[in-house]
């Protein structure tokens, strides 16, 4: 039944139109459907006599790749609602408990269907509105500079290359060649391209995690005239390709950021240089090994169906407004207690768990 529902939804979304926000390049849909039941549980009850607020990122539909079949929540919060009222239209679940609430619990449940996303790199017609929308992702943001050191390195990487796809590939390969996964970094990293480039200048290579590498890739691409954006998400199950790319049932700490770039004749193209550095570390192989090279080639234009996207928001204001100001990214739930920031990298501090179970079809 779920399979039928997913196929129906996919066909419908394809028939209507591809939305500019997640317009994908020619996507080869294979029979690689995976269905996941995901439960997200928050408990802020330990913060007695304090006002608590929470903004949780939610997944949305991405034509041909991701369909949210069911989404529900239960809470004793004084106020709670879903919203996409923010700069990036990122789906958000907001909940607020007042000081008098003794129990502060929020449960989110969702059923999500995922397919592999494989770009075939065949030219297609992209409507002008979609191109105009994509070009917004050429602009710098507070954490994504496109001038200074970023522009200088981008020029060095690109050289005289004019072809947009070749430019993107050069940047992708350069990131893999010059960065390594640093397990001491908290969460997905801070996503600061300038910090990465400063490290490169000092040490000759760059350590970080997925947000750090994705952010630098995005900055270099934007600086080279390619619209690009990070996509925050979470691994929801095992990978067919490597344990390095997978997650078990407890996915509380499985957040992962990928990225996509836009070419006017192809649409949005996914890629994931950070996962290649993770593969190298976890499998103890060389970047130049046949396996690493093969997967690096595959991950230029590919996302596997064990990863669920949330949003591509960076440097934006939440709605309703929080006390601390603009968020730099929204891959983790964001919470405040009496206006103070709750560390999302310490889920035991405010007790949240995310569980994911693959549904047998």
């Amino acid at each position: 039944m779920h399979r039928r529902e997913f196929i129906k939804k996919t066909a419908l979304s394809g028939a209507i139109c591809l939305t500019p926000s997640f317009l994908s390049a020619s996507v080869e849909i294979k029979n690689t459907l995976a269905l996941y039941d995901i439960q997200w549980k928050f408990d802020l009850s330990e913060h007695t006599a304090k006002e608590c607020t929470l903004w949780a990122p939610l997944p949305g539909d991405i034509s041909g790749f991701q369909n949210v079949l069911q989404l529900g929540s239960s809470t004793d919060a004084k106020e709670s609602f879903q919203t996409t009222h923010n700069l990036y239209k990122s789906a958000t679940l907001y909940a607020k408990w007042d000081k008098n609430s003794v129990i502060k619990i929020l449960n989110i449940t969702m059923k999500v269907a995922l397919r592999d996303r494989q770009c075939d790199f065949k030219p297609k017609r992209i409507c002008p509105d979609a191109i105009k929308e994509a070009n917004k992702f050429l602009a710098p943001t507070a954490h994504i500079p496109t001038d200074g050191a970023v522009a200088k390195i981008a020029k060095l990487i690109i050289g005289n290359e004019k072809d947009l796809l070749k430019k993107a590939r050069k940047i992708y390969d350069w990131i893999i060649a010059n960065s390594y996964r640093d397990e001491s970094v908290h969460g997905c990293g801070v996503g600061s391209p300038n910090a990465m480039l400063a490290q490169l200048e000092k040490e000759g290579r760059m350590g970080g995690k997925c947000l750090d590498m994705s952010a630098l890739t995005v900055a270099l691409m934007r600086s080279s005239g390619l619209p690009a954006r990070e996509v925050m998400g979470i691994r929801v199950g095992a990978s067919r390709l490597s344990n390095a790319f997978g997650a078990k049932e407890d996915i509380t700490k499985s957040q992962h950021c990928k990225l996509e770039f836009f070419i006017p004749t192809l649409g949005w193209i996914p890629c994931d240089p950070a996962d290649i550095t993770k593969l190298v570390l976890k499998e103890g192989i060389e970047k130049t090994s046949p396996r690493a090279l093969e997967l690096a080639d595959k991950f230029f234009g590919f996302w596997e169906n064990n990863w669920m996207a949330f949003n591509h928001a960076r440097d934006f204001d939440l709605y309703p407004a929080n006390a601390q100001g603009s968020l730099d990214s929204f891959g983790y739930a964001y919470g405040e207690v009496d206006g103070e920031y709750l560390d999302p990298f310490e889920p035991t501090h405010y007790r949240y768990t995310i569980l994911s179970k693959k549904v047998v079809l």
Partner: protein
Amino acid sequence: MGRITLGLLLLASLMYGREWRLHIGGMHCIACTLAVKKALLGVHGVQEAKVNFKNESAYVISDETVSLKAMQNAVAQTGYTAIDIPLPDLR
């Protein structure tokens, strides 16, 4: 008698602590507030510290033994700066 007086003075200093409002420089994201808060709470005598990214500020309650210099040093060690902003006289 002397011991009692000393004890009372110590108690008074703990009870009648002081408030600080600091301008925090160098924070580039909300997560920086955690590092600044940790640094401030690490200063002996600081009882409470609330840090706000949007306002680039920290509100601190401490006992009388805490100096601005001690807090500035602690914050500087984490890569940020702290400058005292005089609190408005509410009397």
